[in-house]
């Protein structure tokens, strides 16, 4: 038997060994040792090469090298499969159902969420965002907004006083005055913020709440513009199928004044507890800026017109999330907060 024979035979033997299905790790190591180790079959044949017939030695040398390469490549390929196998085995040992390190989930307050949602809608329409002071003078909170002293309109808002002339703002409408005082028209701005009312704390009312005020002043602004913007807002916020209704109301700082209702989305206007069986939810107050307000900030009401609107955030958040007790917003109960 020539060495060439032996080489052929070894190849067949290797193929048989390897073809025996996918070897497990131990079998693979065994095959590797058998053929490629220093005392393995290949090394054995290389050793025999020296004593081989010189005529066939170059041919045998080439064949042996080819076989070595063949085996190496085969084994490399196999090692990938085998090491995959190995990993599966290891994974069986590592219990990945064990809990991962805790990274507790935080949360953004529901009132923030509603405020952001609303401000996003209006900023898309080009409204800027501004803030005004929570403590303000009677002038900014009342007088400049045409809410005159000794007028029953003052009863609409129970007020906290710091002094006779300084109050906790009862609405974000004070921002209207600050904005117009500090900027020349045109103005297009929304102002969210905290407001205070001297009302007993209960399930439905709290001594403070949050509002978003909107103000647009320009030339030739009409009530149709107001309806256009607020209807757009309602469709964005409540969904495109929402219906709105505008009805006359009274605010000393707007004329005409209106209240906007949206169709109750809890009962599809069939009547429910939340809409008090009217089919409508009261959402915001609005109107055309009263000429007296323009006069108080030095705008000429014959040149400028505009609209203003204001909405209560708590009420919208309560409706949106089905929260029944307004006090939940201010308790800081983690079990409440983490749901948002």
């Amino acid at each position: 038997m020539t060495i060439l024979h032996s080489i052929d035979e070894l190849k067949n033997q290797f193929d048989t060994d390897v073809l025996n299905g996918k070897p497990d790790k131990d079998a693979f190591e065994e095959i590797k040792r058998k053929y490629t180790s220093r005392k393995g079959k290949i090394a054995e044949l290389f050793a025999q090469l020296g004593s081989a017939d010189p005529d066939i030695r170059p041919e045998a040398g080439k064949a042996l090298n080819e076989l070595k390469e063949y085996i190496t490549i085969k084994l490399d390929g196999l090692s990938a499969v085998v090491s995959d196998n190995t990993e599966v085995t290891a994974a069986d040992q590592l219990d990945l159902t064990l809990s991962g390190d805790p990274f507790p989930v935080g949360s953004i307050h529901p009132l923030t969420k509603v405020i952001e949602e609303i401000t996003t809608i209006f900023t898309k329409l080009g409204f800027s965002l501004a803030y005004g002071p929570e403590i303000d003078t009677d002038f900014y909170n009342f007088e400049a907004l045409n809410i005159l002293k000794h007028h029953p309109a003052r009863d609409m808002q129970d007020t906290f006083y710091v002094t006779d002339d300084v109050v906790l703002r009862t609405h974000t409408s004070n921002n209207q005055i600050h904005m117009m005082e500090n900027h020349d028209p045109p103005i297009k701005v929304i102002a969210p913020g905290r407001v205070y009312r001297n009302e007993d704390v209960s399930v439905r009312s709290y001594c403070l709440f949050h509002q978003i005020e909107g103000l647009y002043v320009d030339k030739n602004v009409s009530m149709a513009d107001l309806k256009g913007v607020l209807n757009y807002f309602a469709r964005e916020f409540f969904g495109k199928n929402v219906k709105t209704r505008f009805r006359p109301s009274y605010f000393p700082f707007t004329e005409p004044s209106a209240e906007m209702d949206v169709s109750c989305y809890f009962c599809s206007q069939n009547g429910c507890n939340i809409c008090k069986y009217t089919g409508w939810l009261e959402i915001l107050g609005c109107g055309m800026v009263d000429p007296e307000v323009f006069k108080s900030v030095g705008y000429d009401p014959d040149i400028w017109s505009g609209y203003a609107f204001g909405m209560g955030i708590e009420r919208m958040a309560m409706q949106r999330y089905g929260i029944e007790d307004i006090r939940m917003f201010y308790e800081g109960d983690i079990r409440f907060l983490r749901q948002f």
Partner: protein
Amino acid sequence: MEISLNWLKQYCQISLPSEEIEKGLTLLGIECTHDSQSLNFTDVVLGRVIDCNPHPESEHLSVCVVDMGNEENYQIVCGAPNVKKDILVPVAKVGATLSDGDFKIKKAKLRGVESKGMICSGKELRLNGDHEGILILDTQLPLGTSIEKVIDFNCDTIFHLDITPNRGDCFSHQGVAREVAILENVLIQQKQLSMVESGLGISEQMKIDILALDGCPRYTARIINGVKIGPSPEWLIEKLTSIGQKSINNVVDAANYVLMDMGHPMHTFDLDKLSSKHINIRFARENEKMVLLDEKERELSTDHLLICDGDLPVALAGIMGGLQSGITEDTTNILIESAYFDPIVIRKGAKKLDLSTDASKRFERDTDIENVIPAMDYLSQLIVELAGGHISQGIIDVYPDKKPQTKISLNLDKCNNLLGISLTPDELIQILDKLSISHEKYGVNLICLIPTYRNDLTREVDLIEEVARVFGYDNIPESKSFSGSFLSFIPDLHNLDGKIRQILSSNGFSEHYSNSLLLEKLNHHFSDKPGISLLNPLSNEMSVLRNSILPGLLSAVAYNEKRQVKGFKLFEIGAIHEMNQESIRLSDEHFYLGMVWHAHSVLHWRKLPDPDLFQVKGEILKTLRMIGLNDISFQSDEVTGLSKSASIFSRDTQIGNFGELSPIRKKEYDIAGQVFVFQANVDILTKLIAKNKLQYEPPSLFPAVTRDIAILVKKNILSEDVIKSIFSLGGNLLKEVTLFDYYEDPSFGSTKKSLAYSLKFQSSDKTLKDKIVDKLITKILQQLKQQFDAIQR
């Protein structure tokens, strides 16, 4: 305000169903709901008593046989004295209900005699108060007809109105009828009076002087002699109770009725108790006292307007009558006062006494100065009808300066432009007619004459709102486009809040909104700046505005701890207020960020490290870097309310502080666990970030060289100072210094500690040679030795 539908029908024909009126009034700006009264019974039919015999066992009962139109006749036992053969009666069949379903008619035996049904009285059907006998009917309708088809029960509907402060004119049935008339497209009927005057002239019995014309521009009076005070008739009691008013006696009820009907508050005096026969209207003197009808003595001020008998106060004008001169059972002669009082005067006076009455509410919202006499005449007529007597000849009408009727010029284009509609002149005129506003053309404008009851209409824009109201807000189109000027943009403030909220909520913090009204004591916990106190707090617990963001957060910590929630993090961003006498608002407002950690070891199989101040510090640093602040340093500092605390700086500006809540504060907030807090002024952060210009630096192409040094220093040496010293020598090449080991060991002695730093050097233009780095390290160690007495380990 409660309004009765049947009452409204006295003023105009109403064909709309109550639902439509409710909706219509709401869309006219008068928020409205309604309750329809319905029949209180079911299954009551017309029957004929065809036989009636005495009950064998009882004198008071009769045994009747009733024909209800079907084949069978029914035996019914009846206790009414007026039951007899051959009368038509209402019969409640077996199975019928009475009293709104509370009472169900069943087959029964009365004193041994079977009874199948009940013959009803007027009271049982809520038709009238008659309970003495059964109701005997007269009709041609067939037997068995439902009784509601035989008798008109005239069920009323009560509207509950929420009237805005500008619409004082709607505080009466007449006023509401005017609005309903707009819906019905009719005009209201005016009252027809048939008042007869007789006897003595009024001016022979009374003299009236107004000494305070600014408070009382008009005062009128009538006198009725010879009345007899007694109970009111049924119809009046029913009318008043239907809108929630109590009946007192015929004269008082009459005045109340006319108030609810015509809206003008009037007062009735017992004429015989006005001894001076001279009424003076004047302002009260400071501290003048009088006892009002509610039997309480009130101390008055010069804001109060008084009706005086001579100089003796007999009524607090427009608010409440005096006890002394009021109507009693013995009253026979009456003086009726019908006056117009200034709304502001009445409001000031009522506010001062914290007194709000049906009268003051209406005067405050302004009344119709031209309505005083019609209302008084109607009241006079009604009193005579109810209580007898006769009306003295003439009236006293003190009205020196007649109020001119308001005229407003209305421009159609202006109206259309403001509303975004396109009314034609004819359509505008139709609307004005509906509002009873008369008008005449004057150039391109209409001169409109405003009815005297609409005191709220004084300007063109008010009239435009009226037009819009009647036109219907829902009929105003909605603009489909939106245009604006770049000039209308105003720089946004506080963009930072949203970013902070995102960062913190992504890192396990829950956002909290706390009550910014606090117990006064809490304003001393974390700040020594004086806070803002309220003049009229709701309670002691909410008497000041917070001067720190922390108390609210800590209250929430305590709240959660009490509910077995442990190991959580909260934050809040909100305004705090500090007193500033210089400011017109007496206060400075700052936005603050507060963060709290309720530390609690985490129960976890990996045995995670317990949260501590260094974890907190790391979290703060990360947050500040995320919002764009890089040069942050910490300085140990004493902070009010905290133990182990440090101030935090960006360059030289202090932005806030952090630390562990002191044991005293923990006790005060009733918190058991360990709590760490951080607070920062968001206004300052905003300014710093605006200044912070980011500059890109390309990463070095050359390898970095790292060297570690370990030194032994006294414990009072601050690591931060050591790092500063290292950097001062490291020059441009030193990129990072990291403290990687801190060690205290008895072998160092009790005053020493070991600090080990890893220093990273890198050049941007060449590969650093070891030699250069070694040189720097030597210099650094020398300096540390000099500066801190540091021994290299």
